[in-house]
């Protein structure tokens, strides 16, 4: 079992980076590794609980038919998956970044922190992947 730290910066729904970051976290958990996530800048919004799925008026589909995925549900699912697998998922949100964005209602199980926590995550990791914005 290894510990991998992922820093992600993109806001959700903005670039495919979000999806790929979540896929890497998912794969690492499935393989039995501990994962640290540092959600920096716009990425603090991955776990905002007030996100809502929407219908698609162009296609004429309802909320239920559209099944629009919200990142808050992915984060919660990853936390559950880690618990079920017996590995640690330490999801830290940059506090200054969420203050700037008013992103205060957050998925339980994630925690508020600062870049100093990212340094600690690095120190306790076997490897680090930084996924920057373009």
């Amino acid at each position: 079992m290894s510990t991998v730290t992922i820093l992600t910066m993109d806001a959700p729904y903005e670039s495919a980076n979000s999806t790929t970051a979540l896929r890497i976290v998912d794969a690492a958990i499935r393989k039995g590794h501990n994962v640290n996530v540092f959600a920096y800048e716009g990425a603090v919004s991955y776990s905002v609980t007030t996100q809502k799925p929407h219908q698609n008026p162009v296609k004429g589909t309802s909320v239920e038919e559209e099944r629009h995925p919200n990142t808050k549900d992915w984060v919660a699912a990853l936390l559950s998956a880690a618990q079920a697998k017996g590995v640690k998922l330490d999801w830290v949100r940059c506090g200054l970044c969420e203050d700037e964005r008013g992103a205060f209602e957050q998925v339980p199980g994630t925690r508020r922190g600062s870049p100093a926590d990212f340094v600690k995550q690095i120190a306790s990791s076997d490897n680090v992947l930084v996924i920057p914005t373009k």
Partner: protein
Amino acid sequence: MSKYLLIESRDSFEFADVGYFYDLAEGLAREGHGVTLFLVQNGVLPARPSARSERLARLSESGVAVLADEFSLQERGIPAASLAKGVRSAGIDRVVDLLADGSTRAVWH
């Protein structure tokens, strides 16, 4: 010898600096390092046989393991069975395996 994981997320048709990332991969391989170039998101577009594919073939010939993310290929309708020369499809698990070995340096572009 060190090991490097270079993750290319950008389309070489859209971003000219992708070529510099390829150069980095090739340079590291020529110096004897173990290099994996993992194409993901729009980074897989040159894996479809095209005018930009020859560069990926050359990277492979220089010793770089050129992999294209299965999920990204599927999203873009690029059949894994007909990739450009030198490119192989791989799951995101491969990224996790390299990160988890603790000795591979990872760079995202």
